């Protein structure tokens, strides 16, 4: 993590900006100005501290055991329309820590006028934009007087040992370098921060990702030219059912058709044909030379000429079958429409 090199205090009253240098976590006054252009820093890593007159850091208790309380990033948890309307405010993401929810907010116009230019100027060189309350380490019994014009705020520890800020009586001896000599609080992860966290992806990440894909593709090329690897990969893909099938639609359709055909019954004409043949006595069947079933459901039975007597006997006793008899020189043909 980068070390903070400078601290920029932003106030409501003139002079608006106070610049401090940070050395060994100790804050040392450098200059004050009303114009940001006058502040010229070489490669800084900057913390912006908002005056208590400019912002509010709210804190409220919540019951963690219930687990019903879910912190929503875009929610403003200190809505109080008598004082100000939510749409007129810029507020930080809520921070939940030790059963307490904290949020920092300030007037939108003041934010646009005083803070946005700092963000635009220093952009990636900003550590955080936080309140005075969260910025410093306060010793026991120490009371730090923070002036913003005539407005006085008092920073001290409460009974629980946490930083607490209160409004003091307006002072006469205005001090415009009141951070001088204070110890910087480095650990501000749980403090509400107005700096919007952008996803940072550095060049090495891009390069690593690029190399990752490059190595994969080189390996694919290498494996393809190595019979053992090629065999293993093909086997693996087949086992995982990821090998490409030619004409997948046809394969799916054929499988469905064959599965359907497995359950189909013999067509009726075959059952009728079988039933018709079973009507014939064995003696007559022994004289049957040929039988034919055509698609139209026509059955033709060819008997030898000596079978005429049995045929007539059979047809007379089965008149309802409507069997046609045709005689030829060397055979007799029975025709039946199924």
């Amino acid at each position: 993590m980068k070390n903070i090199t400078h601290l920029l205090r932003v106030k409501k009253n003139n002079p608006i900006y106070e610049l401090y240098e940070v050395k060994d976590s100790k804050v040392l006054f450098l200059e004050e100005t009303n114009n940001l252009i006058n502040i010229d820093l070489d490669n800084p890593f900057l913390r912006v501290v908002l005056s208590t007159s400019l912002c509010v850091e709210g804190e409220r208790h919540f019951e963690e055991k219930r687990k019903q309380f879910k912190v929503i990033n875009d929610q403003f948890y200190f809505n109080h329309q008598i004082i100000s309307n939510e749409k007129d405010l810029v507020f930080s993401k809520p921070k939940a820590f030790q059963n307490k929810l904290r949020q920092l907010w300030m007037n939108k116009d003041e934010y646009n006028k005083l803070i946005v230019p700092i963000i635009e100027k220093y952009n990636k060189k900003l550590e955080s934009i936080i309140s005075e309350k969260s910025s410093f380490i306060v010793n026991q019994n120490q009371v730090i007087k923070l002036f913003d014009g005539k407005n006085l705020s008092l920073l001290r520890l409460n009974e629980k040992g946490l930083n607490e800020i209160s409004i003091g009586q307006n002072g006469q001896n205005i001090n415009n370098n009141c951070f001088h000599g204070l110890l910087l609080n480095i650990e501000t992860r749980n403090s509400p921060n107005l700096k919007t966290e952008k996803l940072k992806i550095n060049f090495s990440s891009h390069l690593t990702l690029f190399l990752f894909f490059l190595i994969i593709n080189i390996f694919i090329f290498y494996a393809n030219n190595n019979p053992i690897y090629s065999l293993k990969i093909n086997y693996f893909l087949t086992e995982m059912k990821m090998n490409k099938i030619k004409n997948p639609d046809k394969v799916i359709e054929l499988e469905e058709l064959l599965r359907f055909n497995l359950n189909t019954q013999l067509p009726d004409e075959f059952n009728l044909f079988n039933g018709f043949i079973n009507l014939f006595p064995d003696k007559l069947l022994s004289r049957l030379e040929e039988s034919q079933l055509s698609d139209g459901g026509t059955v033709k039975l060819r008997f030898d000429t000596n079978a005429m007597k049995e045929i007539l006997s059979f047809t007379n006793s089965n008149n309802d079958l409507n069997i046609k008899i045709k005689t030829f020189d060397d055979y007799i043909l029975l025709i039946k429409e199924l």
Partner: protein
Amino acid sequence: MMHNFKKALKDNLNVYVFISIIIVGSIISYLNLSITFNLSLSSKNQKAVIAQDKLNKFPEGLLLVSQKHQNKLTENDTQNIVNWLDDKGKSKSKINLNNNRFIISLNYFKDFDLANYIKKLLLIPNKKIQNLEIKNKEKLITIEFF
């Protein structure tokens, strides 16, 4: 409006580049695998793989006659189809292919089950038995099938 767009683009350019590398890298790797090792992750291909597994359980003769066009059937293919039809030597079939028609002539022997033989033929998709002729003396059956 345009200024805001440009600013947003500039602010998030590294994120867009990172995401682009992931997308382009994934597509190239997938295409490479697809071309080199016939990899396919499509749901249709998954279904086809499962269907292919099930098809492999069907007799080879049935698959040949179902999948291959008649003109592309080799002698070996025809022999496989005949082997599938002639169950345990109860018949001896011969297949003639003529103008998209199968004409099967078979000599049958002891314990031959015609119903079973016809059931096999009915498994073949998009084909229908047009004519069945049984000659008792020669123990010969001719089936026209198209």
